[in-house]
């Protein structure tokens, strides 16, 4: 079967494997995965850019305790790096969590995945985590379960995990070398002792790798997350990527370190910087050669409820849930109907995309086209795969790369919407300045509409504003603009000097 478009697979890449230049095609990237795993990934809100807009997932905070310390985490607050709510968030009992999940699932039929990600490490709270899973497997069998862990106690939990309706397990693996690990983890709690330094990292790494192998053996999907910490593990992550793939992880998601002094984390306070967009993209490219990367991860807040970009958490506070009467049997029927509809819609879109990809592949055969330099373009969208967001309202831009090989999705970049930013947002940087900085490296920004004011600064920064493709499909519009640039001779010139730092 053709694997439907995933983010890591260039959307317009040739669909027939290695028949053209783009050898990083879908078949190669997912080639190591069995069919049933590809199917699982296809409609998953966390992995498929398409499904992201149709299905939703939610998290419940039932697991407050942790058994390790990471240098990018401050246990007092929400963790910016692992989309883990902080301990200040309301911790629920397993019973409360189950009730909340069923209430949300009955109200929002698109909710298909329930995750436990914290506030601590779910597997450091095995009773609470597994009680939640046990009840949900029984009462709401149409909800898939997922869990994130640092891996320390994973080997002990694999048998229990295998009993439930587990969709996938996410392990955060930042290193496979204990000397690197010693710079990331100050201590672990292991066999009734606090262990520090290299020894701690060695144990953690061994447990993570063993857990990964055990899950793969049992056919449970494993995703690996890594936090990219410049100067600490950035170069090392290429090796991590190879190893985790060899052991059966189906996705490797490299996330940028987020470290600010005000978070009070070791890295934040000590001035460890996070990677630039360029560094992150470069590393993701290096890893993508041998593995699927999850480009569309937005490090979403783990306790958000609802579809992408919306949070309906306020409808499901504990007292409101208490008051709700849920007929889950009836809800399941309704849910199945909604899911079938969405799947039909997705598969229609998929057919259209495949046809488009084949066309693009044919066009890419031309040697002239293949020699043209790649161009990054930013797109303002509300979702649905079309250009439908006003420049000034965009809180994030999707970045695409157009080249002779076609169009591929690179990632997301967040900003403060220009129209909401007021004069400044924080450090004397205006919202527009921030957007200009975020768009660095892009030569075009596509949006449904753009005001007069930002036009000039954008052009001055070497980014051409373009509102001519409103409501068009993103990949097609990017390809069309690229073609215009080629005809205009702009692709022969080196990248225009960009003035924004």
């Amino acid at each position: 079967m053709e694997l439907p478009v995933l983010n890591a697979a260039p959307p317009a890449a040739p669909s027939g494997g290695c028949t053209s230049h783009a050898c990083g095609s879908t078949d190669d990237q997912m080639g190591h995965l069995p069919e049933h795993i590809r199917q699982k990934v296809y409609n998953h809100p966390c992995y498929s850019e398409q499904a992201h807009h149709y299905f939703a997932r939610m998290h419940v905070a039932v697991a407050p305790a942790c058994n390790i310390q990471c240098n990018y985490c401050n246990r007092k607050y929400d963790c910016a790096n692992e989309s883990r709510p902080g301990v200040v968030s309301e911790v629920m009992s397993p019973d409360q969590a189950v009730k909340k999940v069923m209430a949300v699932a009955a109200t929002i039929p698109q909710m298909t995945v329930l995750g436990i990600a914290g506030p601590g490490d779910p597997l450091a709270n095995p009773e609470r985590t597994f009680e939640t899973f046990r009840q949900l497997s029984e009462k709401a069998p149409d909800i898939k379960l997922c869990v994130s862990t640092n891996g320390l106690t994973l080997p002990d939990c694999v048998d229990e995990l295998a009993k439930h309706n587990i969709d996938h397990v996410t392990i955060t693996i930042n290193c496979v070398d204990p000397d690197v690990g010693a710079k990331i983890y100050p201590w672990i709690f292991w066999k009734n002792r606090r262990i520090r330094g290299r020894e701690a990292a060695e144990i953690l790494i061994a447990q993570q790798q063993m857990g990964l192998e055990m899950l793969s053996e049992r056919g449970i999907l494993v995703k690996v997350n890594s936090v990219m910490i410049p100067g600490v593990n950035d170069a090392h992550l290429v090796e991590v990527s190879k190893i985790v793939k060899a052991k059966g992880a189906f996705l490797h998601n490299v996330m940028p370190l987020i470290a600010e002094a005000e978070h009070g984390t070791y890295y934040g306070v000590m001035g460890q910087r996070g990677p630039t967009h360029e560094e992150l993209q470069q590393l993701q490219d290096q890893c993508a050669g041998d593995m699927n990367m999850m480009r569309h991860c937005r490090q979403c807040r783990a306790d958000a409820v609802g579809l992408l970009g919306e949070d309906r958490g306020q409808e499901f506070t504990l007292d409101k849930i208490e008051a709700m009467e849920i007929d889950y049997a009836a809800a399941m029927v309704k849910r199945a109907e909604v899911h079938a509809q969405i799947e039909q819609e997705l598969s229609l879109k998929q057919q259209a995309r495949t046809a488009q990809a084949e066309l693009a592949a044919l066009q890419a055969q031309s040697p002239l086209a293949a020699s043209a330099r790649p161009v990054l373009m930013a797109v303002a969208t509300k979702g649905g795969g079309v250009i439908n967001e006003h420049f000034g309202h965009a809180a994030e831009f999707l970045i695409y790369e157009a080249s002779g090989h076609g169009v591929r999705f690179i990632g997301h970049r967040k900003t403060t919407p220009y129209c909401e930013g007021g004069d400044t947002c924080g450090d004397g940087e205006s919202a527009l300045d921030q957007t200009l900085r975020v768009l660095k490296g892009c030569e075009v920004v596509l949006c449904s509409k753009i005001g007069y004011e930002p036009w000039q600064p954008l052009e001055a920064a070497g980014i051409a504003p373009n509102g001519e493709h409103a409501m068009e499909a993103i990949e097609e519009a990017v390809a069309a603009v690229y073609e215009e640039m080629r005809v205009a001779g702009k692709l022969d010139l080196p990248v225009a000097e960009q003035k924004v730092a």
Partner: protein
Amino acid sequence: MAFEIIESCVNCYACEPLCPNQAIYQAQPHFLIAAEKCTECIGDYMEAQCVSICPIEGAILDEVGVPLNPPGSLTGIPPEILAGLDRQGTAAVLP
């Protein structure tokens, strides 16, 4: 002979299940140790269990009121810098 949990405890539950004497209990505004039950883990473990897992420097005190995990001992952030942060309140004002 007993340890004490003080207000910097963030209610993470980590210590509670580890205590060999069930001396730790959930309370408002934070977890507490029942002094009459706490043995400082002597006879059960080489190291006091609550102290070994607690992620918060200064949250657990010994019987004379000295922090068992002093500033800098868990995060590695030098105490001088920590003190400066606390004065400015930087680490306290978070989104």
